[in-house]
Each structure stands twice: as structure tokens, then as C-alpha cells.
């Protein structure tokens, strides 16, 4: 199922397809993840979703094969925006702009267009603002296997 899917699958979806208990499936997925370590393809864990991807070590060959260039790096503004979302997801645009102190429209649309963040729902606040979260493409871009593998940092609580 992970092999044919064109997006990340949640453990729930997999459970529903095979009719097994969720703890069993999650255990099996974790085992699979371990088994694929060191192989050409990996299983990436993004939040509670799993997706099969190529190993970081195969990166350069895949880029060549797909004719992709690797020189389009994200700017500081985009990285800041991305960092705030990654560590506070789901987050609204207003929350991000409050932390950054500047209008963040252009890094925002760039990140959405590059498939690194995506709307994941709407908040309870007035106006029901769109909530954004990172995508599995975000992990893929940085060659990270799971959100848990992001740099471990102490972040001050953003005030309400």
C-alpha cells in the first residue's frame, strides 16, 4: 500500500484497508521502518502518516534521473517561516507574522507552491483562520526521516 500510494498514508487508512487493529499496524509499520534503514528506499514518518521515499544516499542519482537541479535553496525569510510552522504546527499566518514581525505573504506562497507546507484545517479563533502544517515533502526536501529528527531546540513559548 505504501508502495502504490502517491501521498502519505495514515496508520488509520492502512488499518481500514486491512481490517486490523491499529496498534498492530503501527507496530508493523515501525518494524518496516527499521527494516528499510540502510536500503535504497525508506519509509518516512510525518506526524502520523507514512510514505515511501528514496534514501538520502540515492539523492544525487534521483536528481540526475529526474532532471532536477538542487540549487534553488530557500531564503532566510522562507526558512524562518518554515521553522515557525514546523515547530508550532498547525499555525496560522497571523501567528507566524506575529513572531517574525513582518508581512510573510511571499515566503508563505513560495512554501505552499513548493509543497513544503499545506493548509491542514481551520482554527477556532475569530474568522476561522486557515491552519498550516508541514508536508511530507518538507521532510523529503531536507532529507529527514521523521519530524522527530528535526534539530532538538528549546523554544520560548510564543505569548498568546
Amino acid at each position, binding site marked *: 500500500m505504501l508502495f*502504490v*500510494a*502517491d501521498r502519505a498514508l495514515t496508520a488509520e487508512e492502512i488499518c481500514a484497508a486491512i481490517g486490523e487493529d491499529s496498534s498492530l499496524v503501527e507496530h508493523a509499520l515501525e518494524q518496516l521502518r527499521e527494516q528499510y534503514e540502510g536500503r535504497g528506499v*525508506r519509509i*518516512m514518518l510525518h506526524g502520523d502518516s507514512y*510514505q*515511501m*521515499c*528514496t*534514501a*538520502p*544516499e540515492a*539523492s*544525487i542519482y*534521483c*536528481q540526475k534521473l*529526474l532532471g532536477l537541479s*538542487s540549487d534553488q*535553496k*530557500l*531564503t*532566510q*525569510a522562507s*526558512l*524562518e517561516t*518554515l*521553522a*515557525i510552522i514546523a*515547530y508550532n504546527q498547525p499555525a496560522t499566518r497571523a501567528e507566524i507574522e*506575529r*513572531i*517574525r*514581525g*513582518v508581512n510573510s505573504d511571499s515566503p508563505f506562497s513560495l512554501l505552499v507552491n513548493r509543497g513544503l507546507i499545506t493548509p491542514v484545517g481551520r482554527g477556532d479563533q475569530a474568522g476561522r483562520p486557515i491552519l498550516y502544517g508541514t508536508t*511530507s515533502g518538507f*521532510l*523529503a*526536501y*531536507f*532529507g*529527514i526521516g521523521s519530524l522527530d529528527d528535526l*534539530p532538538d*531546540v*528549546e*523554544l*520560548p*513559548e*510564543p*505569548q498568546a
Partner: protein
Amino acid sequence: MLGSWRTGTNASPLAEFHLALESFDGPFELLVNLIENQGFDITTISLVRVTSQYLAYVQQLQQRSVFAEATAEFLAVASQLLLLKSQAYLPGIADDEEVDDAEDLADRLRVYSAYRKLATELDEIQANAMPSFFRTVFLVDIAPEIPDNALAISELILAINTMVDRPETNGLLVTIPTSQISLQQRIQTVSEALARERELTFDSMASECRSRLEVIYTFLAVLYLVARRDAVVRQQRSFGPITIRVSGKAD
């Protein structure tokens, strides 16, 4: 608020702005950084001189495209410096609200600088990143649909005949002068149809086209309308039907 002047990898127009003052000689960004993070005494800085030197700098910039950006950035930072300096001079006068503001500002700076550091770490990761790739097309979608019952040759012939008999293909002998298609016309046609129907599928429009070129022009027309935000398109899955709707123009 402070912000975009604090760029790291991509140079901000202010990055090249140098100051020569009595108590400080160096890049403007460094000065702001010193005041913010190192407790550099802002009262030793003449804001008037910072501003006049900045204006001289802007004069040089005038021809360049970054002019507006640089001016806006400076205004944002300068007003912040002004606030910090006035607070440094008038500690007793500041009422509770202003104290809150100052604390709020300090707090925001603390939060922001944490994320700024984090962004730098991400920047390092992306510099050495070996990205992963995954499948982007759902395989099942492009597999041909095979009907349950095998087709008889006669049915195929029937299907071909039905197609040939369609009125639009009836006049196969007529050569359609392709040069008569103009993108302008196509845009007009599509946008009128859209105004009438509110919602269309690309397939329905393409089926009315009499040549491949016309289909291509129709597609270009749709792209044009989307770019003008007159229309929004939606495609649920790869190779799926494309729906074109009138845009609400709401942002």
C-alpha cells in the same frame, strides 16, 4: 516591527549600509544587533546622524530597484530605534502601558531570535541536504480501464461509425483554416461561456473544439483567465477532469 532587514543568506539592501559615528563605525545591521542583543548604549548614538548618513546612502541607491525596499526597511528599523532611545532617556515617565510595550518587544525579540537561529540550522541542513523523492502519480489512475466483458469487433466498428457520423466530424472534407483562431477570441469565448455557465469542465469545452490547435488555445485561454483571477480551476487527481469555475475574486 523589526524584521526583513535581518536577512542572512540573501543580502538585504541595508546590508551594505555603513555608518561612521563617534561611538560606532561599521555596518548598520551590526549596530542594530548590538543594541538589541549586547546592550549597546543607544543614548551614545545620534539618530540624526544615522538618518542623514542613511539619506546619503539612499541617494546612491536611487537608480537601483531595491530603493523602495531599502527605504521601507530603514523606516521600520529607525522607528524602532527611536522608541528604544526615547525609552532609554525617559524611564521615569513611561507609564505602565509603555513598560508593557517594552517588555512585549523584548519578549518578541527573544522568541524571534530563537526561530532565527533555528532557521540558520535549517539552512545548514538544506545546504548539505540529500533530499528524498517519492512517487507523485497514483499508478492506478493511469492504468487503462478494461471493461468486464470483452469487446466484440462489431462493437468497435459500431463505435467508430458513431463517431464518424457525429455532425462535427461529418464535414471531414472541409479544411478548417487554422489561422482564424486567435487567442484573444478564445479568451473571450471561454470567459463568456464561463459567465453564462458559472462552471464548466475543460472536457466539455475541448469537445466543442474542431482542431487540436483550438484545444491548445482553449487551454491557454483558461490559463490566462486563471492568471487574471477571473477563474479558478480544480483537478481532483492526475489526469482527472478539470473543472473551471468563476472566481469570487475574494482574496
